[in-house]
């Protein structure tokens, strides 16, 4: 089977956006926690990278102590039915399942799950009612290869706002805007927030940057900024772009070939990074950034067609588009880094 076409009975109102953990500070994968305020219910959704799962698989876990039973169904759109489910203990269902992505090349259309459907068991005569779902494409692109825990902790404080009325996510996902000051744990110093990450700020930095306001109370923040953040240490010229928590040096200038003519451009412009987005961080701040991106990050150099997957602190060349598809690696996650920045990173076995 090559092509599956299905119309769906899913109510578009029930379909909520999926948050991309790669574009949240701390780089989400391996870890991201979402508060989800849906129409009639509240959740805490935890997304953790599961190293034993490929991006074609996902673990779904339901946690709830609410008296009304809850169920999560792994839904196959072609079959218009569930292929597996988890539920409250009162239903006698398990609370964890491993699901496989539906619609993979060479796979029968009725195998695997396209998305999940969250159901409540209302009092008779209504009974089991499907309420919430997630966009199938984003569901697998963003959460494939992860353990996703739905902590369903409230079923009485909804906001009556359904999926089609819920605003699309805005990125980068950060808890505080740039240059927010946060007290350190012992209240003896300050952090400055850049790209959602906290950098220890000394008095010279604070004075030079004019950051003289009061700091907010301590809260633990990621150590690495969200994807695409551009940083430069104070009084240093080197600019880095951050992807997957790792820093990649952006050249000061870059020569590009345009119709046979050599053009010299500022490095950030040559790589389509906005120079105005460069954030000045405290001295030594780049030391807390990674050298190899988080596991699961896809990177390529601008002038090199090869795509690499970060896997166990090594880069593995994804040798063909067929391998990309077979491994359920979404092209939309490929991050373009400056030329030459991948050469010195450790390389592992090719993905074939």
């Amino acid at each position, binding site marked *: 089977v090559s092509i599956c*076409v299905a119309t769906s009975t899913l109510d578009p109102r029930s379909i909520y*956006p999926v948050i991309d953990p790669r574009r949240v500070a*701390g780089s*989400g994968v391996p870890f*991201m926690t*979402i*508060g989800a305020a849906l129409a009639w219910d509240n959740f805490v959704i935890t997304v953790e990278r599961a190293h034993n799962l490929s991006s074609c698989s996902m673990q779904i876990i339901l946690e709830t102590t609410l008296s009304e039973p809850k169920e999560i169904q792994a839904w196959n759109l*072609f079959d218009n039915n569930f292929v597996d489910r988890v539920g409250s203990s009162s239903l006698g269902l398990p609370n964890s399942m491993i699901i496989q992505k539906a619609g993979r090349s060479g796979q029968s259309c009725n195998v695997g799950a396209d998305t999940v459907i969250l159901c409540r068991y209302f009092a008779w005569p209504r009974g089991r009612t499907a309420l919430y779902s997630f966009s199938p494409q984003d569901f697998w692109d963003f959460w494939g290869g992860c353990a996703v825990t739905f902590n369903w902790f409230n079923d009485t404080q909804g906001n009556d706002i359904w999926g089609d009325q819920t605003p699309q996510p805005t990125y980068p996902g950060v808890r505080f805007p740039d240059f927010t000051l946060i007290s350190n744990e012992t209240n003896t110093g300050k952090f400055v927030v850049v790209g959602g990450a906290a950098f220890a700020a000394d008095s010279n930095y604070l004075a030079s940057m004019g950051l003289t306001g009061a700091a907010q109370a301590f809260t633990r923040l990621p150590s690495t900024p969200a994807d695409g953040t551009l940083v430069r240490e104070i009084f240093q010229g080197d600019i880095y772009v951050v992807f997957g928590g790792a820093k990649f040096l952006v050249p000061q200038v870059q020569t590009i070939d345009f119709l046979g003519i050599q053009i010299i451009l500022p490095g950030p412009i040559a790589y389509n990074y906005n120079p105005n987005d460069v954030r000045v961080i405290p001295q030594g701040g780049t030391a807390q950034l990674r050298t190899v991106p988080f596991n699961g990050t896809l990177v390529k150099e601008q002038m090199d067609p090869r795509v690499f997957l970060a896997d166990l602190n090594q880069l593995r060349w994804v040798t063909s588009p067929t391998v990309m598809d077979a491994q359920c690696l979404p092209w939309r996650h490929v991050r373009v880094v400056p030329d030459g920045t991948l050469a010195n990173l450790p390389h592992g076995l090719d993905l074939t």
Partner: protein
Amino acid sequence: MADFPTRKGIPLDYILGSLSQPGEGVTPPPADFSQIQVFVSGDAASDTRAIGLPEDLRLLVQGFVHRSRTSDRKAAPDIPASDENGDIRIALHGLHLAPEELRELRQMIRGMVRKRLPGKEATK
């Protein structure tokens, strides 16, 4: 994010949705939401020639259903069906079309997929 009514001590990286009740500016859900969703997967999903195919198929199905509902043809119970012949499998759920209409629509879908992805045509 601090006011999300969850257990204390769980730092949240993102809030999906809003805690506020819908105000006057929020459009209420339409009573009769008729937008049809079409999903395409398998080999077609990764074929660059298939860009826009799901949207085109959705428009095709939506137009067909609209014409069907405005005609005098009596709708029959929906019969989910799939094309067992060839590489294109089609399942039509929730359209409330008559069996002959479903057959016609499947042929139209198959035709559009073959036109857009000629290399994917079934080996007959």
